[in-house]
């Protein structure tokens, strides 16, 4: 297992380096693009463009330029956004990351619990419950986040804010956990629900079909022939084998959201997270910020994939021992 983890981490590092090279090439070596003007942003002065040309070594060879960019990004950490008057990029990312993490972690917890519960309930085969839950799941998947978010905002912030159920919900925005745990929680409840609704639909549907598939497996028949209780069969045999599917899609979903995929939710609820940062950077064509968020996002997706692989190996012993010689 240790060997597996070490090997996997080395691979991850290689992929991360490859990603930075690729990103660099897209932004600095794409034909027909003048990176100095792009970096400087809209309406930049000639002086600013000249500074950028020097800072990034844009008159020098590609490898040197790559090294200089990585130096700005990783070593000096002074990659600067010029469009809003020389603001450093990395502190912006560092400020935005906890917001996104708070949003995604809460939503994740919500959709995993609800998705598993609803999936199990639907697969348990009640005659009407199953199509009802799966229909609701389909609707949940189909609702666009911006619509659901604005709708919930309309209800909880405006129309029914006086109603006792919603009166405790504060105005849009974000409060750090360290500053006020209750403020953190109350600001995030509606965003959590908004973000998780579609995933609850997806996860419950995936889990239900997997549960039904696994419940036909021979080893479930064995478990029944052993006289085990239905609960034991579900938890130790059917569910345990079905959850493997969720783990693999979960890794990608989680990483995608943390990397900026929660953009719509963040913008709708005025949460200053990675997604919102990327969104505003695109509006301003603020290239350094876009570049930094792209690299951050890519790195996070790769790391999450590694975590999933390790988790998967732990959950499914068969993937762990590839190359292991089965003793007789």
């Amino acid at each position: 297992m240790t060997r597996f983890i070490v090997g996997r981490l080395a691979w991850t590092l290689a992929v991360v380096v490859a990603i930075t090279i690729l990103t660099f090439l897209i932004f600095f070596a794409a034909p027909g693009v003048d990176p100095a003007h792009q970096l400087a942003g809209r309406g930049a002065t000639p002086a600013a463009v000249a500074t950028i040309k020097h800072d990034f070594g844009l008159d020098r060879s590609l490898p040197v330029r790559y090294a200089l960019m990585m130096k700005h990004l990783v070593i000096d950490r002074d990659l600067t956004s010029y469009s809003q008057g020389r603001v450093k990029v990395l502190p912006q990312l560092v400020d935005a990351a906890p917001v996104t993490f708070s949003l995604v972690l809460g939503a994740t917890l919500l959709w995993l619990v609800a998705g598993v519960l609803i999936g199990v309930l639907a697969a348990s085969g009640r005659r009407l419950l199953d199509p009802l839950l799966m229909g609701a799941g389909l609707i949940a998947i189909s609702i666009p986040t911006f619509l659901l978010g604005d709708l919930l905002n309309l209800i909880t912030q405006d129309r029914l804010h006086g109603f006792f159920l919603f009166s405790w919900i504060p105005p849009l925005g974000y409060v750090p956990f360290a500053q006020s745990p209750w403020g953190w929680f109350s600001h995030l409840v509606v965003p959590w629900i908004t973000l998780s609704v579609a995933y609850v639909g997806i996860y419950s549907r995936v889990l239900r079909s997997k549960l039904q598939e696994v419940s036909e497996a021979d080893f479930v028949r064995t478990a029944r022939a052993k006289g085990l209780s239905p609960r034991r069969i579900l938890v130790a045999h059917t569910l345990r084998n079905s959850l493997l599917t969720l783990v693999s899609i979960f890794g990608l979903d989680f990483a995608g959201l943390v990397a900026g995929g929660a953009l719509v939710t963040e913008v709708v609820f005025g949460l200053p997270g990675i997604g919102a940062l990327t969104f505003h950077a695109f509006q301003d064509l603020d290239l350094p910020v876009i570049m930094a968020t792209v690299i951050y996002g890519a790195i996070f997706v790769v790391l999450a994939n590694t975590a999933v692989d390790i988790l998967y190996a732990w959950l499914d012993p068969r993937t762990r021992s590839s190359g292991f010689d089965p003793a007789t």
Partner: protein
Amino acid sequence: MSATAPPLLEVEDLTIEVRGADGTALPIVRGVSFTVADGEVLGIVGESGSGKTMTLLALLGLLPPRVRVRGAVRFRGRDLLTLSEPELRKLRGAEIAVVFQDPMSSLNPVQRVGDQVAEQLRAHRGLDRGAAATRAVELLERVGIPNAASRARSYPHELSGGMRQRVMIAAALSCEPALLLADEPTTALDVTIQAEILALLRELADQLGAAVVLISHDLGVISEMASQIAVMYAGDVVEQGASAAVFANPQHPYTWGLLGSIPLLEGWPPKPLHAIPGQPPTVAARPSGCPFRIRCAHAFEACTERPELLGRVAADHRDRCHLEPAAKAAARQAAPLDAGAAS
């Protein structure tokens, strides 16, 4: 046992039906009856699709709910078909245990094999985690798994096929059942392992005094273990009796065919093997009358009527064949479906 005690297992007129695409009932198994006494071994033999496994699953109420089961399955006098699911659960694994065909797919791939033996003990014997684990290791030792204590921590994919089937047997016998159902327990294994597993099954069943219902398509396997035989074809029992009687004087042409398809190792050059021509019919395409008549060299007009299962040669040796018992020896000679007649 006193004369009034009911037999261990008494299956009476068991019929299993599924609904066809057009809603009509298709019988998979038709009117199967047999009795298994304490400690006795019954062999059920037949080709794939003859209804052997369905019969076995029906005994434990393990068929899907859309399948209809009629008749009676009396275990120590209680009709299992009328029991509720919780009542059945108390019997399954404790009084009646199963060894399935493919130990790879029949074991949970993500659970350690020791735990798969232990969970049954915990369910029926109320053992705590530690006691069940200790007992599981003892059982794994008993079925001949070397280094049982460390092997108990293995996952199924880390064991060989024979070892996996030993794990299945250890789990099945963990609660010392009175009846063991074995569904093709050696079919998925290497030939060299098959004999070992059969010997192990026989030895452990003897020690526990457990009765065995052994299902196989292999008459060789059946002949080694069973004292009673039921031959199934397309959902019917076509011949049934003490194995000595059935092997010495087979009455149904299908049984002749099965006997003829066993390779014999005596003599040189080896005698040619005989295959039964054609395929067994599917449930939907089963012909009226005797289901074997379309493959049978001896079919005549009467065979369009389904024959009764009657003791034509002896009261306890029954068959479903319209041929006159006296004419059978000549018929078997004339149309050689088995190696003995071919020589």
